[in-house]
């Protein structure tokens, strides 16, 4: 009846289930695989800490995405404050240099990523959460704190822009 093991197991189950999703979510926003990996890891560790300190009112999935989004916001802020040289030094690659990511990406995926770059951030978020992570509108509302209506509207607009980018 060791409670400690129970808790550990449950959390690791969540890792198995959601690590890919969280990684992808972050990756599409940052376009940097290494950094996305780091932030994915941070997300899980911070979620663990959060649960330890405050418990969790939401489902683990919501919580993970919330924390991931917060980390992304921090990341963007850092980017804004830094000059390009500093960025290069830290290894955070600005959107342009996709060529470093060629390792396991096929030609078509590369094109997809290039398109992703051009999408507005909020639209990126809408499309990845809805269609890649296959979250329901309700889950998305829970995670982002926005109304289901706003989210529906945003998804439609995102799809429109995506179509334009793909066909143009």
């Amino acid at each position: 009846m060791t409670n400690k093991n129970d808790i550990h197991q449950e959390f690791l189950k969540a890792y198995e289930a959601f690590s890919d999703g969280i990684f992808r979510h972050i990756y599409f926003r940052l376009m940097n695989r290494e950094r996305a990996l780091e932030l994915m890891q941070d997300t899980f560790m911070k979620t663990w800490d959060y649960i330890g300190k405050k418990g969790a009112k939401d489902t683990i999935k919501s919580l993970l995405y919330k924390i991931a989004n917060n980390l992304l916001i921090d990341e963007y802020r850092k980017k804004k404050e830094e000059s390009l040289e500093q960025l290069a030094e830290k290894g955070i690659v600005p959107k342009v240099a996709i060529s470093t990511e060629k390792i396991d990406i096929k030609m078509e995926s590369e094109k997809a990523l290039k398109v992703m770059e051009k999408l507005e951030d909020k639209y990126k978020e809408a499309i990845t959460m809805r269609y890649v992570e296959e979250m329901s509108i309700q889950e998305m509302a829970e995670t982002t704190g926005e109304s289901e209506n706003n989210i529906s509207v945003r998804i439609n607009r995102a799809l429109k822009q995506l179509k334009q980018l793909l066909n143009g």
Partner: protein
Amino acid sequence: MDKTKQFISEMKKIRLTQNEKMSARTDIISHMEKNPIGNTASFWTRIAQIFIPTQHKKAFIAIYIIVLVFGGSTGTAFAAETSLPGDLLYPIKTNVNEEIRSRLTFSKQGQAEWEATRIQKRLGEIKELEQKGTISKDQIEKIKAKIEQQTEKAKEKIEALKSSGDSTNAEKIIEKLETSVKEHEKVLEKLNDENTSTQEIKETVHDLKVITFPKQAAENKLENANEKIEKIQNFIEKNHDKMPEESLKQAQEKLIEVQQKIEEGTAATTSEDFKSAFESFKEAHKMANEIKPEIKDEIKSEKDAQEIEKPQLKEQKPEDKKAIKPSPNNTSRNKFSEDDSEHK
């Protein structure tokens, strides 16, 4: 849309490599080990403020001392696991350990199952205390309050599971809970008296079924009521020569009333009002339950009258337990039947 679909399927292909996944996992695990939750003194201080109401200050202080002495080892959380109501660590078990587990379970099914398990744990605690022989009225009341709280939580999770489309598992969870209550029935009956109604504990759990699965609950209750009617009819047949004529008439009239109630319920079923149907069938069952003891009363008093050679029948009230020969079915039925107690 074709290009969009293709685009999205390309995006889905991007995932972690096995190595990446494993390596991150290892780092995360070591973080978890270094920052255990539920065990450190600072955690307990904070958690105590959130989870443990001020009435358990004694418990909090005791834990603080234990933690200081043992340095916040896993001992405390583990020790709490086997505690019973009245123990100092009991609130830790229910309000901290179990709560953490609740928060961490992420599937809807897992959550519903866990909350139901917590109710079963409470029932088990009653049994343990009873076996020890140390159970007090106070403790029963405490557990009863916890069960009511817990049932609210379970109801939420079970309804959530149902709405997410998984009625089957939701039903399974309820059935499991009902079985568990049946298993503890003997202990609950034993402890049932005027001051402590463990009957209400059974009611609370049964209510859960009505709220989450009103149709099934109504069907089950109809079955119960019909079974009862059959039994009574058999009983009357067997004993009608022993029964005074008035009593026979009364019993038959009552049976008609019961049948009317059942028809009410059946009508409600047709209009899909399962909650009302359940209530009607429950009423019918209750009314039916009163018939047999009344008859037995009359028969006994008939006998008594004949023995003492008094020409008049004594007026017996149905609540007059003492005149009835105790039988396993009968003892509790006069106060409450299984599904009988007053509605809140």
